[in-house]
């Protein structure tokens, strides 16, 4: 079973284990579990072992590096020089980037051992990880259920103990929602906190990269490695990066937590119960609970789907079969298929999956002449109103708390035919992207109360599914989110291990 970053670092520093031992264990677990989970698109075993041995060879150089010898999984929309990066799309099935994302370079500078690229929804579009061209990821707590999306492979890998930490990206909840549904911690940093250079773009005004891990401490360590300005991303922020682990004091007596009660009506009863219990735990630690009003929050999901699809349709225009990626085979018999434009249209038709096409279509429509003002511009004005709600709330409170997901993990296939039902899973997460605010999901219980699940997950059981509490904070105040989440974590003993061993096929 995979340890935490802290345990791996302690073991390597004290000489009880080498980085190579830690790496080969992680690779063995991936080999055992991946046939059941489908969490990885690509595993780079040789590269990882070579890297781990390099770290073992020079212990002095790596002694104080925060991630030296720690196995890390990367969502497969983060570019890795020389390692296939697919975004879980046929369009990029054989794409090998000629450069590293800034976050990849920073992880490696900190000593991380990258073990592979995790499955996700195609181009990070979805809420369930069912939109991958390489098949759905399965939830380690119940293999018939979704892990959440879009960073589902990263969440499943961490939950199943394959790596202590993984990176995801979050455009409308894609780190936090799978973290909640898989029972791990996930953080979407403030927009601009982490460089997006080398992240395959979905919606550029919403995308952020962030960590998923089993403890708040490990998320804090990883954020410290990732955060900071980058000349290659003009939207990255120059704000100083604090020592996030120093914020983990356990003391929340000065904290005021806003609770948007009106927003929580009609959610799953067990999610409501777990959220209330978590807030009560924080209150008993000395935090103050305050009712807050977010009058425009109910517009957030439709606004998100107008804004994000518009940006996606523009970003995905680059996939034209010319410079890299897939190109459709030679011209068909129909004259309209011939030539450059026919090649574009057939390449995109064959290279993109249904959800990506649906969003390109919607985004193209809302940006088109005659509809731009009514849809796209209107949504951007509504985005301003949503943002102002939070500005007002943060005059009274330090954070706003709500569930991460309105329901626990649903069964694979349950919502896939109804886009609107699928989009409603994002109701609590999209506001943080529209406003650019940081938000964290921390495990706050399980369905069925007892927190135990059947081995391998029982298809007939609704119990034993993880639930996540979400905290949203002020711009660049990740430290307060981490402090509260860590304080809560100290008071809980939620099982952190899914009912492994996962039966290998």
């Amino acid at each position, binding site marked *: 079973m995979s340890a935490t970053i802290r345990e791996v670092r302690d073991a390597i520093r004290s000489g009880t284990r080498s980085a190579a031992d830690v790496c080969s264990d992680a690779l063995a677990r991936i080999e055992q579990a991946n046939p059941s989970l489908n969490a990885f698109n690509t595993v780079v075993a040789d590269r990882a072992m070579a890297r781990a041995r390099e770290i073992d060879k020079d212990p002095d150089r790596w002694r104080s590096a925060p991630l030296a010898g720690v196995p890390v999984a990367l969502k497969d929309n983060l570019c890795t020089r020389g390692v296939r990066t697919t975004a879980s799309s046929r369009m990029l099935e054989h794409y090998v980037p000629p450069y590293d994302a800034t976050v990849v370079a920073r992880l490696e500078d900190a000593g991380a051992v990258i073990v592979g690229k995790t499955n996700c929804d195609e181009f990070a579009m979805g809420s369930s990880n069912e939109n991958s061209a390489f098949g759905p990821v399965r939830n380690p707590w119940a293999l018939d259920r979704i892990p959440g999306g879009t960073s589902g492979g990263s969440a499943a890998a961490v939950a199943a103990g394959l790596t202590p930490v993984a990176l995801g990206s979050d455009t409308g909840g894609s780190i936090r929602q799978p973290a909640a549904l898989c029972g791990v911690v996930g953080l979407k940093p403030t927009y601009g906190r982490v460089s997006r250079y080398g992240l395959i773009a979905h919606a550029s005004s919403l995308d952020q990269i962030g960590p998923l891990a089993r403890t708040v401490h490990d998320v804090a360590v990883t954020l410290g490695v990732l955060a900071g300005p980058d000349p290659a991303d003009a*939207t990255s922020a120059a704000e100083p990066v604090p020592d996030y682990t120093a914020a983990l004091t356990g003391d929340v007596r000065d904290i005021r937590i806003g609770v948007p009660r009106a927003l929580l009506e009609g959610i799953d009863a067990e999610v409501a119960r777990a959220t209330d219990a978590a807030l009560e735990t924080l209150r008993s630690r000395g935090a103050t609970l305050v009712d807050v009003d977010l009058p425009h929050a109910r517009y957030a999901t*439709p606004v998100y789907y107008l804004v994000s699809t518009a940006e996606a349709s523009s970003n995905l225009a680059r996939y034209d079969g010319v410079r*890299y990626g897939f190109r459709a085979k030679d011209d068909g018999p129909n004259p309209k298929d011939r030539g450059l434009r026919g090649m574009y249209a057939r390449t995109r038709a064959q290279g993109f999956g*249904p959800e990506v096409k649906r969003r390109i*279509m919607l985004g193209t429509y809302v940006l088109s002449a005659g509809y731009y003002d*009514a849809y796209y511009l*209107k949504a951007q004005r*509504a985005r301003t109103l949503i943002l102002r709600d939070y500005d007002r709330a943060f005059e009274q409170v330090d954070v706003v708390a709500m569930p991460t997901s309105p329901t626990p993990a649903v069964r694979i296939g349950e919502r896939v035919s109804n886009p609107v039902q699928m989009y409603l899973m994002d109701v609590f997460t999209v506001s943080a992207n529209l406003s650019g605010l940081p938000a964290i999901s921390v495990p706050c219980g399980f369905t069925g109360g007892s927190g135990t699940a059947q081995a391998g997950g029982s298809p007939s059981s609704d119990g034993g599914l993880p639930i996540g509490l979400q905290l949203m904070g002020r711009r660049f105040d990740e430290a307060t989110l981490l402090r509260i989440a860590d304080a809560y974590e100290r008071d809980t003993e939620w099982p952190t291990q899914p009912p492994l061993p996962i039966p290998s096929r």
Partner: protein
Amino acid sequence: MLAFGMPAGFTRDQIAAIAALAHLDLDAAEIDLFARQLGEILEYAEVVQQLDTAGVQPTSSVAGSHLSDRADEVQPSIDRDEALAGAPDAAVDAGFFRVPRVLG
């Protein structure tokens, strides 16, 4: 859902026109599916139209403190062969991406 302003769904011709703008060669089944689904999504999004946004500035970016412009200095970048290496059809010796004919 709403008594006004509901998009009445899309015709096949409308969907085909949007697909042409997006350079997507959709088949008949996809056109029918998207005609229905885009209508449903926009019907769901119609609630946004109820909002009074008079005088509200649009938000296109939430980037806070932008980094100032970089110094105008030559920085390392990938070379031409590397840039061409991922191309489906590259004329490597000439240093070009090759595409199907554009004219006639």
